[in-house]
């Protein structure tokens, strides 16, 4: 019988850099800044850290990157390294850190990510993907993969385009209030409808920002946090993962993702259901990803997401506010850890878009073209 780690581990501190264009900064430098801020936020010294889990920078792959970062931090961790399954990596690494802590492999872990595609290299984003003939068909870029999935969803379920628009509008509304957000310009549904197509059916306003920046969190046991008098620990109640790992063209079902199994695992660990969740931070690299995640998490029936998200339901004051700091569409396009940080703020009660009485927050991360998924449930 597996032991249940629900509530045994906390996020003790969070930190990030500015978001947007940060020219001249390496990802190592950005990571160090975010980690410095996370340690200060937890109120602990770096000498306490003995685990370092780092997402491989998306913009450029570097071998032994975590060891380079450890060197820059003056740390010799007992456990850690880079993890790469795209944007799902962050929450996955938090779960590995939790398991490592409970298994006695480390006591205080840092989970971090940095990226600089806005002013640094965009090597990884520019390539066509799939096999060696993608370019022959003109099959380029990440948005197209999501557009292929979106088209199927629109056609199969009669999903209204305004459903995708409602997600963009909610994220932009929430981001407009966030002083750290890269894009603080609200969006109306009419403006969304006029937004130009990038790869139809996806419009410019369906696509996330391109951002430099870094984020980091400090993970430790609840016991350790108490002993160290950490001011605002936030409990990790559940986590889960899933992988579809089929090329978009080969995926048997384009409109259901590994979000489903990932959320089921996390909800079971936490002993919770969708109705228990007060606020959600949903990975919104493209609006369709957020819409399908809400369906696969069980907040609404499969195929109903496009209707369910409309009418303010996912905005602050609605039934399930999402992406209360703006998400990837408004706060920063960085792949995902900022969503965990906003989840922590909501549980601490210090979000700029604080949901009154919020006691449970679910966070989703996903990577590739919805190939990988991870879920985190936080509680007060």
């Amino acid at each position, binding site marked *: 019988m597996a032991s249940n780690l629900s509530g045994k581990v906390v996020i003790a501190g969070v930190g990030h850099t500015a978001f947007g264009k940060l020219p001249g900064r390496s990802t190592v430098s950005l990571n160090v800044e975010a980690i410095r801020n996370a340690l200060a936020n937890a109120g602990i010294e770096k000498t306490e850290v003995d685990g370092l889990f780092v997402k491989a920078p998306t913009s450029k792959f570097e071998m032994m990157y975590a060891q380079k970062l450890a060197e820059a931090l003056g740390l010799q961790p007992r456990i850690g390294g880079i993890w790469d399954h795209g944007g799902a990596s962050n929450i996955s690494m938090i779960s590995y850190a939790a398991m490592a802590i409970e298994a006695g492999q480390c006591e205080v872990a840092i989970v971090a990510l940095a990226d600089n595609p806005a002013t640094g290299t965009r090597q990884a984003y520019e390539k066509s993907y799939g096999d*060696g*003939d993608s370019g*022959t068909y*003109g099959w380029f870029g990440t948005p197209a993969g999501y557009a292929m999935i979106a088209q199927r969803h629109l056609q199969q379920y009669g999903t209204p385009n305004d459903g995708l628009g409602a997600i963009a509008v909610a994220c932009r509304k929430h981001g407009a209030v966030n002083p750290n957000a890269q894009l603080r310009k609200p969006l109306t549904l009419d403006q969304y409808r006029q937004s130009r*197509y*990038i*790869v*139809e059916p*996806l419009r410019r306003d369906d696509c996330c920002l391109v951002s430099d920046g870094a984020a980091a969190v400090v993970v430790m046991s609840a016991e350790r946090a108490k002993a160290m008098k950490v001011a605002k620990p936030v409990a990790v109640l559940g986590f889960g993962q899933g992988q579809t790992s089929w090329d978009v063209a080969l995926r048997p079902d384009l409109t259901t993702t590994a979000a489903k199994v990932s959320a089921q695992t996390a909800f079971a660990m936490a002993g919770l259901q969708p109705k228990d969740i007060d606020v959600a931070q949903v990975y919104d690299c493209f609006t369709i990803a957020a819409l399908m995640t809400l369906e696969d998490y069980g907040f609404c029936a499969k195929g109903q997401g496009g209707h369910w998200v409309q009418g303010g339901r996912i905005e602050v004051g609605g039934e399930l506010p999402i992406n209360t700091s703006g998400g990837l569409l408004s706060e920063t396009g960085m792949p995902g850890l900022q969503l965990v940080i906003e989840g922590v703020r909501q549980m601490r009660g210090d979000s700029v878009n604080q949901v009154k009485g919020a006691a449970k927050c679910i966070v989703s991360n996903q990577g590739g073209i919805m190939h990988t998924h991870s879920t985190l449930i936080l509680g007060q």
Partner: protein
Amino acid sequence: MSEALTIPAPELDDLSRPFWDALKQGRLTFQRCTACGHAWLPARSDCPRCLAPDWQRQDAKGGATLVSWVVYRMAYHPAFESRLPYTVATVQLDEGPRMISNIVGAQPSQLRIEQRLRLRIEAEADFMVPRFTPT
């Protein structure tokens, strides 16, 4: 014609070259496992279902259905600028394998999921490209 206006040639290796060679003879081929009968694209050394290394190449009959599609409104490569808007689709061959391709001979607004398609092999610079058109 300038180099920039040629669409990217397929990157060939020993496994994928026969697929493109067969197209020059007017045939769209896929692999079928001789152990379990599974059929697949793109080219692989081993059956992704039963992992057997034994397979044969077979000719597709040319019928397919439309799984989904996108319409490019901006070019990610200069050779596609003059082709905008163009359609990239996921199609399922009647024999089972799925592939990325292009839909030609139809307005994007006329397309529907599960629509019947027919193979149309078209000539490019020095290779032939398998594309599909609604029946």
